[in-house]
């Protein structure tokens, strides 16, 4: 794929076009709808077989867990949380980038988001689905999850409203619901376009039902756009609250290494960081596979790399503050934990995490790195690794050296732990692959709105912009 180059001389006074090559509106529809209208190629089935295998591994590991109990895992007191909650925090963090791109960038009128918003939102939903599984799984007997909901029971006791675990359930389920609605509302016009494009009767029926009979009427667009802004305005504080509440699961406890006030912003920054890493990983693959390079341009990847660099430095700041506060507070237990993280049994993981999250993203200072797809792809993978390790280090190192030396215990994951982790990746990528065949991966109606000449030139009293 040859990238459209702007030449050696860069004109900084004029923003590059959001969609390259000035395609017609019909071409945009054609290229976005193509994956849904053609039979999938061999590569797709190869990819799907790999992800389904991963999903199967996860299913087997889960069946073992549910039959024999969570004794199949490496968890043991005091390390009561390990892979399960690590995976939960990791996946929910992945989801946050989607909301950031679709909602926060929308509110800031960053119109380059249109090309990647749909995909990022879909990733949010799939990631939250993966994340939502882990609190259920880590119970070992998942049907007991019913006790966390405020339903009347025969013993008469209600749930503990003061517990961050209860807040977590409310936050994650609200987040999933709102993300799903936001995504679906955005999909409606595109589903209507698909309804009018398709010649297959069965597909037409499905698209008709899903598009709710959308008619592209301007009287509808007017309210629709308003609702989109409102949802974006609701989703923006929501995304901040969700990861803050996830961090409360740790920060409200009194364990050294968890009991810190920096946790909410630190977790939110980490979530955005890991999410952007994952969005980059998937988008680089998608634009290659589906030839969408003129819609998801190098400029998009460049801008995402810049955001990643920014949040990487926010995460680095938190990494600096943790040992500083541990030292400054003069609490020997806190300081011991900092030393154990850097030099203890999990030191390798800690330093890999620091390398992936702090040092490697510094390469994004260089324009050449930001515009090299291969390097971007490798770095985005490393960010994923680093951010998974971050949650692992936070959870396991705080637990394995708690206040009581007699209960110290070294956690070693078992094959079942890894099986479930692999299974969650299998689930995520299976859903991504199916989504890329079944629904428009790029918001057609939004991309049409950002092509050159899409809007009549400015006039007094124009409502939008």
């Amino acid at each position: 794929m040859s990238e459209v180059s702007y030449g050696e001389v860069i004109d900084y006074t004029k923003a590059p076009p959001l969609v390259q090559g000035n395609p017609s509106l019909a071409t945009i529809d054609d290229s976005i709808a193509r994956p849904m209208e053609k039979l999938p190629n061999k590569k797709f089935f190869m990819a799907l077989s790999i992800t389904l295998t991963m999903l199967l591994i996860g299913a087997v590991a889960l069946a073992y867990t549910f039959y024999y109990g969570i004794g199949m895992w490496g968890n043991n007191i005091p390390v009561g949380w390990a892979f399960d909650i690590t995976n939960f925090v990791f996946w929910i963090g992945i989801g946050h980038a989607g909301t950031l791109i679709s909602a926060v960038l929308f509110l800031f009128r960053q119109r380059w988001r249109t090309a990647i918003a749909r995909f990022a939102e879909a990733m949010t939903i799939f990631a939250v689905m993966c994340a939502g599984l882990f609190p259920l799984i880590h119970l070992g007997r998942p049907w007991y999850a019913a006790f966390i909901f405020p339903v009347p029971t025969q013993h008469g006791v209600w749930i503990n409203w003061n517990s961050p675990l209860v807040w977590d359930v409310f936050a994650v389920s609200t987040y999933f619901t709102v993300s799903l609605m936001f995504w679906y509302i955005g999909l409606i016009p595109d589903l209507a376009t698909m309804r009018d494009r398709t010649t297959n009767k069965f597909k037409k029926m499905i698209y008709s039902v899903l598009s709710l009979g959308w008619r592209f009427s301007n009287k509808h667009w007017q309210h629709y756009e308003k609702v989109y802004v409102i949802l974006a305005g609701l989703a923006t504080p929501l995304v901040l609250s969700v990861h803050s509440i996830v961090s409360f699961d740790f920060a409200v406890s009194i364990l050294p290494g968890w009991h810190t006030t920096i946790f909410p912003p630190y977790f939110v920054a980490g979530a955005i960081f890991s999410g952007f890493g994952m969005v980059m990983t998937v988008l680089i693959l998608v634009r290659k596979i589906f030839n969408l390079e003129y819609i998801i341009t190098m400029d998009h990847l460049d801008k995402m790399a810049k955001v990643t660099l920014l949040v990487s430095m926010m995460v680095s700041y938190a990494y600096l503050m943790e040992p500083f506060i541990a030292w400054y507070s003069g609490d020997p237990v806190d300081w011991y934990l900092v030393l154990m993280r850097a030099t203890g049994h999990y030191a390798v993981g800690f330093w890999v995490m620091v390398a992936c999250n702090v040092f490697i993203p510094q390469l994004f200072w260089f324009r050449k790195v930001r515009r090299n797809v291969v390097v971007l792809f490798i770095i985005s993978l490393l960010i994923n690794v680093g951010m998974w390790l971050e949650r692992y280090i936070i959870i396991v190192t705080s637990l394995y050296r708690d206040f009581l030396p007699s209960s110290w215990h070294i956690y070693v994951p078992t094959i079942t732990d890894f099986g479930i982790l692999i299974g969650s990746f299998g689930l995520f990528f299976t859903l991504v692959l199916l989504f890329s065949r079944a629904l428009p991966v790029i918001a057609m109606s939004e991309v049409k709105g950002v092509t050159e000449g899409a809007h009549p030139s400015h006039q007094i009293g124009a409502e939008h912009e």
Partner: protein
Amino acid sequence: MSEMKKTSQAVRRLYGVTALFDRPERLLHAVGEVVKQGIKSYDAYTPYPVHGLDTKMKLKRSMIGAVTLVVGLTGASLLLLFTWWTNSIDYPLVIGGKPLFSWPSYVPLMFEMTVLFGAVSTVTALLVIWLNLPRNSHPLHDTDFMKKVSNDRFGICIEATDPQFDERSVKALLEKLGGASVEAVYYEERELTLRETILDPKFIGAIVVVAVLTSGAAYFGFNKMNLIRPWNSLTVQDKVLPETQSAFYADGFAMRPPVKGTVARGQMPYRYASDIPGAEKYMKNPILPTKHVMELGQRDFNTYCSPCHGYFADGQSRLQGQFPVPPSLHIDSLVTAPDGLYYEVITNGYQGVMPSYERQIPRDERWAIIWYIRALQKAQSPEVANVK
């Protein structure tokens, strides 16, 4: 629209006249002209929201945000009310020493409920109330016009309900404005009633079937499946229950007798049972009368001894003759009696009048009581040496 004409035996009605434009500027111009003509029932159709169209159409500002505000705040209030009722009224429970209604803990939940209620209500209101969706039986559906505006054309439809509507003049107007494929759109009268299929017996029957299947599955899940391994929730365990036999030991008992000579913690064997002279001769008080011991002795004496012996061991029973009244412990023979006698009597009782307290009072506490009795005796017959 040609296919509609072919199939329709039924009454056809005119919905309106449509026209297509290839550029948004032309649509804007056309809309401006239509408004100038005083036409009210019309709508513009665009593949994406076109800037400036709302102003041209003189649409009023969308007030759907009011739904978000009102319902969102309702969600927060309901949550607050619910947390207050559950934790303060229905089952008051003190958690972590906090007040029953510790509202700061509920702030995150209130926020989540604001967002959830606000978002769900806004989307529902948009679709159902503002846009009157889902509706797949609109006359414009499945027309060439709709297929174009969903792709790359910009359309306008002037509806027949407009008082000024006249098919010929409207067509002429749209053609004059540069509209392509100016066409009339018809619909069949029965389409007006299509939405009532929700009361179709088939649909209701399907719902009933789903309900029966769901409740059957739920019954099976909750009443049968959770008794099958591995879901039996530890109700079946590999342990020996009372009245059952153990297959592990030859004698069939699960409990093993302790090794000979085993002494349980805090249960020193007492070898002078009913042997008062032996106890008097050999038992010595093994603990020292510290402040703690004296307080322990006082507490136990007041608890176990004082009902019959009185708080001062003077035989002032509080039981008003329902039990035999014991003698005062201040008589000479008892003041001079050795500690072993007291220990023996507390442990094994006395002549069927005083019961044994072996099970109620641990060994060390018996000795603590004896120290306390000694202190009471000294207090009743003070000597100069004791008062120091």
